[in-house]
């Protein structure tokens, strides 16, 4: 791997030629691997990257049915935060946030992680009590956060409508200063480049069509590019996790829904932070290009079509305009949906399935992007050692049998 540096930049600039090599190879799949990751999004690439760098397992393939980062990694609103209520979830997301803080250096690739802070607005007395409780829980867990009143909000966010007569009166917010946004494509590309440099084969346009088992354990995967043997297979396929798991007769407590987002025409800097509101199902930030990035809630019905109903985005935009009247004449340029895998307790499922050697990492629902490096970190540990990392032990599939759910609907809810 050619390292990026100011010297490399100067050298290539003076050479006037195409001195930059491709970020990763495109090899043909081998007949067998020590581990196969199904899904070339951020989570799958991070898993492969950490399998190689932290556990020395480099005979690894990442199989992606389309192009890497072309699923939810390229469709989210890029928000990163860790202010979750319960200890288990907070620890997992905080680990991920910490990995994000060092990710550009670790990957030698600028993922443009911008810790511009995240506000979660409260619109009622009851919601403010919940927010205060969550901030207190965060601080007990060593996670930064504080309660912000409406007066201070009006100073920090002069374009926010905090009038008491608004349709969604803003009574206050929680604020996590270390939260922010990262460049989603760069996260996928940087992870792919780092994984490839450590020997991982990234195989695009290779769809898994079957999972072979022998005596209760996984033996390999059928793909559109032939059969690939592997004793360890990790399914990291977000919205399509149920489809993949059913190939091995594994049932998951997951329902897939479209989650819609939009970006506006680019504008001068107007919003220097991230503002989210669970109650009105809307969240907004401004990208480095100047576009407003707006996320809506999920559509209620199961769907795989990567499009949702207009009423859902209409509701989100109505709320955005109510809270930010200055945006009322902004035009939206693009609009899309990703397919999110929601679980009954709004927490992920990470660990081995009843089929030995077959692992799942799914159920991140509406908030997987923030967890990208942390998710890969714990799944790599789980696949390498056969035992869950302490951070993902609470998120095993069998929690739905034991009843030990981690109910994060309050902090996760819809607005991730």
């Amino acid at each position: 791997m050619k390292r990026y540096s100011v010297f490399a930049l100067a050298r290539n600039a003076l050479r006037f030629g195409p001195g930059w090599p491709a970020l990763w190879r495109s090899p043909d799949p081998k007949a067998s691997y020590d581990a196969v990751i199904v899904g070339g999004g951020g989570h799958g690439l991070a898993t492969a990257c950490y399998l190689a760098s932290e556990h020395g397992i480099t005979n690894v393939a990442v199989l992606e049915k389309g192009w890497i980062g072309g699923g939810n990694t390229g469709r989210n609103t890029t928000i990163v935060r860790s202010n979750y209520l319960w200890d288990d979830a907070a620890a997992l997301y905080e680990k991920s946030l910490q990995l994000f803080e060092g990710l550009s250096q670790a990957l030698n690739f600028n993922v443009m992680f911008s810790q511009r802070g995240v506000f979660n607005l409260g619109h009622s007395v009851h919601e403010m009590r919940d927010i205060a409780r969550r901030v207190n829980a965060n601080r007990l867990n060593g996670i930064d956060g504080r309660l912000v009143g409406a007066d201070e909000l009006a100073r920090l966010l002069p374009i926010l409508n905090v009038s008491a007569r608004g349709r969604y009166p803003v009574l206050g917010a929680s604020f996590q200063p270390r939260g922010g946004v990262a460049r989603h494509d760069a996260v996928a590309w940087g992870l792919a480049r780092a994984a490839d440099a450590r020997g991982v084969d990234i195989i695009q346009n290779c769809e898994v069509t079957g999972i072979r088992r022998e005596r209760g354990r996984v033996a390999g995967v059928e793909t559109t590019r032939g059969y690939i043997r592997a004793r360890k297979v990790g399914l990291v396929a977000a919205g399509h996790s149920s489809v993949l798991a059913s190939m091995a007769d594994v049932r998951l407590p997951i329902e897939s829904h479209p989650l819609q987002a939009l970006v506006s025409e680019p504008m001068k800097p107007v919003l220097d932070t991230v503002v989210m509101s669970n109650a009105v199902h809307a969240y907004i930030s401004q990208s480095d290009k100047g576009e407003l990035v707006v996320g809506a809630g999920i559509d209620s019905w199961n769907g795989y079509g990567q499009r949702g109903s207009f009423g859902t985005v209409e509701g989100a935009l109505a709320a955005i305009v109510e809270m930010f009247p200055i945006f009322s004449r902004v035009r939206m340029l693009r609009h899309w949906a990703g397919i999110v895998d929601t679980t009954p307790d709004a927490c992920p499922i990470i660990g081995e399935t009843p089929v030995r050697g077959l692992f799942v990492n799914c159920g991140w629902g509406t908030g997987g992007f923030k967890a990208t490096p942390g998710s890969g970190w714990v799944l790599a540990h789980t696949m390498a050692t056969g035992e869950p990392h302490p951070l993902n032990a609470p998120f095993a599939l069998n929690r739905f049998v034991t009843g030990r759910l981690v109910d994060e609907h309050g902090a996760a809810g819809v607005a991730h």
Partner: protein
Amino acid sequence: MLLIECPWCGPRDESEFSYGGEAHIVRPPEPDRLTDEEWADYLFMRKNPRGRHLEQWCHAHGCRQWFNAERDTVTSEIVRIYRVE
């Protein structure tokens, strides 16, 4: 936006309906005889198919009746609407 044909009220906008998830899940008559795995399967596990899905809808802002639909989860085409037996 889906156009859903309520068996009683005719075609109406999706916003009048609420979604009830997978259809034909029957509460086990004697839950205390089930294993934890069987109970978890009833409570939490879902088919979640890519393609034809049998699901429940309620005309919440209309006649408030529940009914079933067969819908393609990729195209959102509603193939069939049928009453709850």
